């Protein structure tokens, strides 16, 4: 199965995914299962825990990518659940090198594809490069390699699978663990609320590299998720997706609630869905009212110790950040409109000048 550059094997006939530039649908509950490719590139029988959000995210991402992709993966849950020698869950070419260097691995693959294609040593068609790393492998130990890859402008898509701790090594805190969460290295205790710092804003850090595409995505909204991965892969240059990844084992939540918890994450404003396209922020889904935090935290015993006061404090910050994001999106939209108007005006003026100077 192959597809030519620029067209998607499975998308073109259905008009889906939507072409770049067209806003994503805001009704995220539409049922489009019949539009999602049936092919699976992520095999059953991998060793993820029940209800693993990360495994779902990867399955969807691979559907979005199709067969013409090379995947690099960091050390972490994903690598461990998919490739115990001599087995593999990967139906696409795949490589793991180490924990902190996935962006560099992907950079090397991209550089090789570029030069080998130029030199005629591999078939002349676009093969996409996709990297997966955990929040630890991205926000902490892998931040340098990621920053380097984004800054150098490699044509690749990097997906951070954020389960908000180092799960593979036993639920230790990461820079991406939310404030107040109890982990094995930020345990809640008489003298500690658990994680004492606020989540590192990875999507904003990625966007600050002025790359063409950044998005947050949540497998609880699979349609939106697939769209974004496709969009990222179709973007020329580096693209970054921050993917919410519910982890029943690390969050001590019920295994049948991962999708529900993911939805709550977005509906409470904890994990807003947005894109940053060429620096322009787009809020993909703005719930009529943000849900209170209680239900979200109640379902995750990692937050069990938090008092109502603690929750109120966290909620205030979540809302402040959400409002700031929303304002930013509105401003960017306004600016975009203004620029468009200006462009139209400039074109008109040019035309007028040409007509005036016509003999």
């Amino acid at each position: 199965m192959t597809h030519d550059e620029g067209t998607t094997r499975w998308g073109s006939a259905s008009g889906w995914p939507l072409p770049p530039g067209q806003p994503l649908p805001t009704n995220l509950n539409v049922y489009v299962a019949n539009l999602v490719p049936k092919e699976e590139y992520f095999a059953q029988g991998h060793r993820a825990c029940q209800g693993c959000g990360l495994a779902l995210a990867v399955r969807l991402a691979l559907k979005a990518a199709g067969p013409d992709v090379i995947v690099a993966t960091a050390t972490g849950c994903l690598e461990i659940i998919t490739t115990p020698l001599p087995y593999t869950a990967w139906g696409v070419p795949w490589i793991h090198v180490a924990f902190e260097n996935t962006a560099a691995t992907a950079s090397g693959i991209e550089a090789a594809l570029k030069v080998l294609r130029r030199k005629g040593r591999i078939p002349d068609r676009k093969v996409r490069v996709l990297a997966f790393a955990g929040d630890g492998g991205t926000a902490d130990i892998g931040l340098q390699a990621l920053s380097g890859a984004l800054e150098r402008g490699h044509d690749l898509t990097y997906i951070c699978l954020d389960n908000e701790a180092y799960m593979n090594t036993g639920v230790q805190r990461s820079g991406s663990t939310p404030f107040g969460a109890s982990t094995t290295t930020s345990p809640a205790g008489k003298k500690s609320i658990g994680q004492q710092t606020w989540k590192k804003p990875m999507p904003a850090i990625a966007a600050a590299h002025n790359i063409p595409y950044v998005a947050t995505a949540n497998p609880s909204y699979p349609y939106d998720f697939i769209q974004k991965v496709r969009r990222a892969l179709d973007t020329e240059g580096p693209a970054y997706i921050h993917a919410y990844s519910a982890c029943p084992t690390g969050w001590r939540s019920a295994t049948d609630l991962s999708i529900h918890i993911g939805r709550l994450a977005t509906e409470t404003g904890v994990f807003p869905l947005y894109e940053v396209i060429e620096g322009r922020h787009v809020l993909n889904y703005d719930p009529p009212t943000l849900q209170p935090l209680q239900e979200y935290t109640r379902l995750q015993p990692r937050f069990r110790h938090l008092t109502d006061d603690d929750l109120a404090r966290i909620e205030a910050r979540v809302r402040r950040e959400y409002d700031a994001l929303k304002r930013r999106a509105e401003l960017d939209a306004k600016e975009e409109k203004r620029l468009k108007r200006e462009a139209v005006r400039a074109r008109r003026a040019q035309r007028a000048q040409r007509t005036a100077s016509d003999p």
Partner: protein
Amino acid sequence: MKSAIPKTVVVPPGHRRVGMEDSHAAALAVRQCNVDVVAAYPITPQTHIVEKLAEMVANGELDAEFVPVESEHSAMTVCVGAEAAGARTFTCTSSQGLILMSEVVYITSAMRLPCVMVLANRSLSGPLSIWCDHSDVMSIRDCGWIQTFAENGQEVYDLVFHAYRVAEMADVQTPVILNVDGFYLTHVVESLLVADQEVVDRYLPPYRPRHSLHPDRPVTMGAYGVPDLFTETKKAQDEALRATYPHIVRAWQEWGDLTGRHYHPVETYRTEGARVLLFTMGSIGQTAMVAVDTLREQGLPVGLVKLRLWRPFPHEDLRRAVAGAEHLLVLDRAVSFGGPGGPVASEVRSALYGQVDAPVVHDFIVGLAGRDVAVPDFEAMVREVLARKTAPRHEDYVIYGARE
């Protein structure tokens, strides 16, 4: 009799004689190997090599992707990713850069990716020093790469071709580190024989990896080892590295046939009838040859054994080369703190252990961080060895010339 300094220089067919810095000679060789991806991070004394390659790519003299990475860890990783995708790659580093990337260095060989690295040898911090010794390479001694040493600019140039030739052989598929002494070689301008591209093309076939990452033939690379299989993978890796030996020798033979310049795992200079043998690796061998000449003139029966191939360690060649001598004076350029002397001497001792009539091994740690080892120093060390009343124990060593 061979002399340390060649008197007349004949330019063999298919070559021209050019004066150039050894770093540029390395870069030129890399260019002639037509590498696809270069990824490196600047560190003294390796910088001139990367700079030259960047220039070649910028000028269109080399059609490659030059990836200006943000660290050596990423430099090695980019090479791994690119090599896995089927590209011929090059990186070079020194000292701190090497230990920063060392995690990936080990992974590269375990994945059997035939990357090539020039290591411009420099001491490890601390204290920080930019000058030459071998503490960097000794820190990754067991990394599973083939490791060779160059002694002068011509060897640097020639051994780059050898590195790619060997690494990519279907039965080898193992990365190669070429050790080049920082400053002593990297920053020296020498008169070199440069091979015509046609000679190189006859020697080095295009790179055709057995497996590579491509959707047309999906493979999984870098799966993790469960206890049930890990031991077997390590045994296979060790056997594979040992089995590279004949291919390494064959590739040198082929280069020698083409160019007239021959290389061997262990090389000797005026060893006939020698009571004392000096034992060196890298550029120090050049001074050692002059020292041997000088000492021979004084009537001292001294010779020289030089180790060119550090991994896989050429036990047999070494035993043969030192047979019959009374004393083997090993010059180490690194300290194994709290261990059995310098790393080279301890390997030499274990190679000779239990051999009948093996020479007594004397371990001298010299030339740390660019401390010069001149002819009078060799003389002093030889005289010290000859004056010793009792043989040193296996764990004895001297840090030569250190002030108290």
